[in-house]
């Protein structure tokens, strides 16, 4: 528990907000997140927004993941070079060490 989807608020009408995700539009209650504003991303569970997403934190998370991926890619190519003795790539083509 529990399924919740990040969605963006495009309109607020009293306690109901219009929220969108890619290709999807819905209405959800914002009674649990009274400070939510148009443009905010909120987590939506069972028709209610339960949290405003901290975009700075989200950006940091994804930046970290990108770094990890880069590190992983670098290590992969380093391992390949070690494996193949430093000159040839797996398919036999020559690679600059």
């Amino acid at each position, binding site marked *: *528990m529990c399924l919740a989807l*990040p969605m963006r608020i495009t309109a607020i009408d009293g306690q109901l907000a219009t929220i969108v995700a890619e290709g999807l539009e819905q209405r959800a209650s914002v*009674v649990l997140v009274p400070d939510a504003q148009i443009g905010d991303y909120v987590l939506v569970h069972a028709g*209610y927004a339960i949290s405003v*997403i901290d975009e700075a934190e989200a950006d940091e*998370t994804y930046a970290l993941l990108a770094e990890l991926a880069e590190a*992983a890619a670098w290590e*992969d190519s380093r391992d390949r070079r070690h494996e193949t003795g430093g000159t040839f790539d797996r398919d036999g083509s020559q690679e600059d060490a």
Partner: protein
Amino acid sequence: MTRPADAVPPGALKRLAADLAAEASAALFRRGSSALTFMEVCGTHTMAIARFGLRDLLPPEVRLVSGPGCPVCVTAMGDLDKVIALARLPEVTLTTFGDLVRVPASHSSLAAERAAGADVRVVYSPRDAIEIAAGEPARQAVFAGIGFETTAPTVAAALLEAQARGLSNFSVLSMHKTMPPPLKALLELGETDIGGFVLPGHVSVVTGSACYEFLAREYGVGGVIAGFEAHDVLQALLALARQTRPAIEIGYGRAVRPEGNRVAQRLMAQVFEPCDADWRGLGVIPGSGLRLRDEYAAFDAERRFDVEAGQPLEPRGCRCGEVLRGVLDPAECALFGARCTPEDPVGACMVSSEGACAARYRFRGIDD
């Protein structure tokens, strides 16, 4: 903001897994144990782990166990029987989340009752149940309230809306439960050597992190609050393995604040009060349930309807309880995959799509 899954480069996961393997070895050495057992206590985590095939990425030193985090699975048979009894009342329109429809109660299920003529309607939101009540004043709309602290505030808000709109035909059967108490109960049982908890991300959105501090302080068990993407789970396991002292960390900072959602907490406290609750597999845990306060008795299905549910019947050979406590691997249950399958489930752990058995079944050895 991009969709999380699109934003996660596959290489990142491999790297996280490699880091986890390294940290796990170091942690085992530090702790002097042969395996690290981490427990997740959220049905949505169980589901995510199965869906992403995360067990493939775990090093052999890390054992990931499912705990009592599936609200459907931990609902006592007696409560399920009450839901069935209510659905059978001719004036009742039983509104429910989809999760409950196929769960086997002692003698029936909501799906079976619907086939037999009961008015059972699946809703996505408790607000939809309110609209049904408003649109059909001659019917009694009863909402089957399951879920933990993520869901209880939404039910509280819906109930207050029903009150504000003067609806006299709406009521809730509260089977809601709260999360920290079963963790304490599990640790008190001491059946498994839990090295750390992967804590429920969305429950924590509401509760915040302080309510888990006792795990570290009194039991020496750490916890990391985790989100539901593959990288969230791996990062939480990594953080747990890295802990040199037990601590509670928020690994899902983009959604969870240390203080939680105060508005949601207030609404929950306004409408509900703690009570003892019967957890399948764990028995009665004091103060772990939520019941409607006396001021809202008019909306309490328990008090409005006189339902006699009879003696609950646990299916023979069903070991859901042990699975829920994390002491039995689903594959070790004699019924698993034989008499008990997703098509023909015996216990809740198999019928609920995020029950440990259903998740384990889907993930059974493709390489066997």
